[in-house]
């Protein structure tokens, strides 16, 4: 297993370097830079532009260097915890992200827990009661969850949450807590608001997970080892949990790869509709404004989380099922 970890790490490092180069290249592709965009914005508003100041800012932010120099400066900065400077917010990137990161993590972890807690028992019930009324009903709800656009569900739930529970429209806490330090009262306000975005963001994921787990479990329940175990008198619960359920957990493990970045990125469109102070809208704004370091660092962070997530899920799969595929073969 140690050798496998080293092999996988060696695949990860060049991957991350390639992603960083591509991310930086894409950020550099649009003509001009943040300052050019800023000048154009000022001119369109009829304001005068002090070219000497612009030139000073260009030198200060290192935008007068070649893209290659800027890239290496950015990469080595990140390795030392310096993610660069946000031109848009006039602050270091770490300060801009700040609290937004924690709120995003809270929303996303709640969504993941919701997805797993709801989908797991429903999928098991659907698979073990295939074609029953309960299965048909849950399948219908699942398809509705998959088909309903998140932003539409967000608008509907915002209305009902306000009309029946008195929860303020939008946001993740009452307005009086917006700039207040963290306290139990603030935490309670966050928790009271949390269920709406959790339900909205988690709906389609839950429905998808139910479908996949149900299908996997049904496949396993048809296999000979399960039929034999039941025929030999093994109880239905034990026979189910011992192998079929364990084998059908692979999609959960594989999902770790995509879960880690989604914990941080948040659902941008839903966050905008619901006015959530998460990082999704911030990333969108940074990309629109060509705020190179904020957008680039954030995208790079997401890429790192994706690669680390895939690495962790690969390790978990290798530990759970270190089996050769007979059509493959070992070459060493």
């Amino acid at each position, binding site marked *: 297993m140690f050798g496998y970890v080293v092999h996988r790490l060696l695949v990860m490092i060049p991957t991350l370097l390639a992603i960083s180069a591509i991310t930086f290249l894409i950020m550099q592709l649009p003509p001009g830079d943040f300052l050019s965009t800023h000048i154009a914005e000022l001119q369109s508003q009829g304001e005068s532009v002090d070219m000497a100041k612009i030139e000073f800012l260009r030198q200060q932010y290192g935008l007068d260097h070649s893209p290659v120099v800027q890239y290496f400066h950015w990469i080595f900065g990140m390795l030392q915890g310096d993610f660069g400077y946000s031109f848009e917010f006039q602050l270091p990137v770490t300060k801009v992200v700040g609290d937004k990161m924690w709120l995003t993590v809270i929303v996303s972890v709640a969504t993941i827990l919701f997805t797993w807690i709801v989908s797991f028992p429903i999928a098991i019930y659907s698979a073990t009661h295939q074609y029953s009324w309960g299965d048909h009903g849950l399948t219908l709800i699942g398809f509705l969850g998959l088909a309903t656009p998140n932003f539409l569900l967000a608008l509907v739930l915002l209305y009902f949450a306000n009309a029946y529970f008195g929860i303020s429209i939008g946001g993740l806490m009452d307005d009086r807590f917006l700039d207040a330090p963290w306290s139990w009262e603030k935490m309670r306000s966050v928790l009271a608001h949390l269920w709406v975005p959790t339900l909205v963001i988690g709906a389609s994921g839950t429905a998808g997970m139910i479908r996949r787990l149900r299908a996997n479990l049904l496949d396993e329940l048809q296999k000979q080892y399960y039929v034999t175990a039941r025929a030999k008198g093994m109880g239905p619960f034990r026979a189910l949990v011992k192998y079929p359920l364990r084998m059908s957990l692979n999609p959960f493990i594989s999902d770790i790869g995509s879960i880690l970045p989604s914990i941080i990125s948040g659902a941008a469109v839903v966050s905008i509709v619901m006015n959530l102070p998460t990082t999704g809208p911030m990333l969108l704004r940074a990309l629109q404004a060509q705020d190179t370091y904020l957008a680039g660092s954030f995208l790079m962070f997401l890429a790192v989380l994706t690669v680390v997530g895939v690495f962790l899920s690969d390790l978990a799969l290798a530990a759970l099922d270190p089996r050769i595929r007979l059509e493959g073969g070992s*070459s060493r």
Partner: protein
Amino acid sequence: MTELRYPTQAMMGDYVRAAFGLALTGTPLLLSPPGSAATYILGPLALLFAVFGARTALRHRTVVEVEDQKVATNGLWRQELRWSELIEVKLSYFSTKRDRTQGWMQLMLRGPTGKLRFDSTLDGFPDVARRAHMTARAKGIELSEATISNFASLGFEPAKAKE
């Protein structure tokens, strides 16, 4: 008694991996000021590749002795396992490819005094695997589904599976 070794040609890949990993993580580490974030991210990675390099070197000079009564490894220290005392056998397959091809196997044998591990790069690995498989069958040692499947890919008939 048969003496088996890890051939140099097979070990070269792991030496290159250790050196490449050490260069990729060690170079920026040396260029970064001490105590920076890089120290905490790249430091453990560099250490990991260094340990992997040391393990590769150790494995390179290890001699595996296979006899009818026992199997032993002579590396930094000597480890021995009598076939009659075999408790657990596990044959794992690892691959970094998405289609799970071009991988390698690892055989773990556990006895009362410890574990012995052999990679499929070992010359004569199928012989060690065959003896382990035969002993497991003779002693009725239960094997996992993955181990049975991996033994089957080497051409050994399935033994008793764990419930």
